[in-house]
């Protein structure tokens, strides 16, 4: 998707608890990106606090804009377009980025584009030098989403399966809370799982015993609670619970990925979203890809989680195709991915 003339797009991501800005150049690729994580801000509360998140985005947007332009060696007037995440996400957080992005584009007299957050994640692997060709299967696993998507091209997404209740990352966060661990819960549970023995307790692999590609992680909470209630509270029990919980989530994702690859015949698997940083899952999916004879792609870790680069990239492709937002500011807390216009 690279062209001979440069078209430079600023991307702004503020859908949850990361403020991410980046500049993508259609000719030279990613020029710069900057991120401010609010994890520390929310750690005391054990999760993202919407009001705090919005305020923090507002505070960080302009300093990050200066930072990213300076790193790219550009001035504001060098921007040819502005793309911002308009949904799905927390409405106040989204509006902070949408208002800043739309206003900046208006002031610079360049087109603006509202980007779907999940499209950003789906296209993030295309930021890498070793990038997958279309079509590919994408497993998107984060705190807010667990989806298997058939990606035929930009804006051509078929949702093959998704979580019917808790997202995989959300299940990690909640189990972390039950185990008395801190926020964010994913890395804390994974670290504890390293010291534990999966299989001492046996949790189900939800919905793997029936056809279909949907997920359900809510019921695992009950199994964790039952084991914790039936055993003395000590470090070994907690570690073994963490290990079996992680094994259950990883194996469930694995079974569904395998099924989706076989059903679609797709040859490339892309794994994205915050949970894709989980080491146990990465190694299990590498084994799967060898067994199935497909290639697996993991975006670099900083682009697995929320970031501005993926929004700049997605926005650049759509702006180049002539799409643009009218002069209004809108955010969509819920926004079905399969309603996007294909390119």
């Amino acid at each position, binding site marked *: 998707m690279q062209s001979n003339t440069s078209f430079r797009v600023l991307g702004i991501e503020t859908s949850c608890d990361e403020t991410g800005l980046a500049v993508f150049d259609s000719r030279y690729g990613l020029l710069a990106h900057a991120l401010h994580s609010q994890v520390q801000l929310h750690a005391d*509360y054990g*999760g*993202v*606090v*919407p*009001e*705090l998140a919005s305020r923090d985005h507002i505070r960080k947007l302009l300093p990050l804009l200066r930072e990213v332009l300076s790193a790219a060696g550009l001035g504001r007037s060098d921007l040819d377009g502005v793309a911002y995440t308009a949904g*799905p996400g*927390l*409405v*106040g957080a989204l509006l902070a980025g949408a208002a800043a992005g739309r206003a900046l584009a208006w002031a610079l007299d360049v087109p603006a584009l509202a980007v779907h957050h999940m499209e950003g994640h789906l296209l993030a692997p295309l930021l890498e030098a070793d990038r997958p060709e279309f079509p590919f299967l994408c497993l998107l696993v984060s*705190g*807010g989403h667990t989806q298997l998507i058939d990606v035929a091209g930009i804006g051509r997404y078929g949702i093959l399966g*998704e*979580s*019917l*209740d*808790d*997202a995989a990352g*959300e299940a990690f966060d*909640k189990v972390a*809370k*039950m185990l008395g661990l801190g926020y964010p819960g994913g890395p804390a549970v994974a670290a504890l799982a390293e010291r534990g023995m999966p299989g001492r307790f046996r949790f189900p692999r939800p919905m793997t015993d029936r056809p279909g590609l*949907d997920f359900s992680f*809510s*019921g695992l*909470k*009950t199994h*964790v*609670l*039952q084991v914790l*209630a*039936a055993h003395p509270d000590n470090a070994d029990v907690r570690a073994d619970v963490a290990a079996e919980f992680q094994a259950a989530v990883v194996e469930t994702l694995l079974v569904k990925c395998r099924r989706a690859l076989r059903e679609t015949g797709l040859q490339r698997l892309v794994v994205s979203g915050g949970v894709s940083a989980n080491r146990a899952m990465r190694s299990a999916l590498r084994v799967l890809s060898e067994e199935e004879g497909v290639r697996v792609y993991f975006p670099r870790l900083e682009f697995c989680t929320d970031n501005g680069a993926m929004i700049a990239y997605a926005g650049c492709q759509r702006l180049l195709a002539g799409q643009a937002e009218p002069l209004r500011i809108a955010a969509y*807390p*819920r926004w079905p991915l399969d309603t996007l216009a294909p390119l």
Partner: protein
Amino acid sequence: MRLFLPDEAATLALGRRLFEFLKPGSLVFLRGTLGAGKTTLVRGLLRAAGHQGAVKSPTFTLVEEYALPGLTLYHFDLYRLTSPDELEWFGFRDYLRSDSLCLIEWPERGGDTLPAPDFSIELELDLPGRAATIETAPGGDPELLSEIGSAAPPGIS
């Protein structure tokens, strides 16, 4: 009134029953620890309302919306609120309408900002099952509770 729910199916069944006693404008509080079955009960209720799709946890989004025939159902999770003031900030009052049904998990995070509910349900762990304590609004119809209890399907005692 207190009911024992031996398994997930019983929690779903209670949700289905409860729907029959709600009307547009109703407000329901759902209390209970992580994993107590609050969202499971809501799933049962939504099934009775004719919604067959996913019932996602609203922990991440704060509120999930369901357009039902002649009625909009809002499923809230206030777990992440740090102060009741934040309810005003996200326009909470706009959700409480005569044509909407609001189910609220973690209502204690909303403090006095929330109006009194028509029903308040507390789910407790009674492993492997759950126990549900149901209360109506002060001045509410006590017969309603015994009706819900007597209408309880097999599996609930």
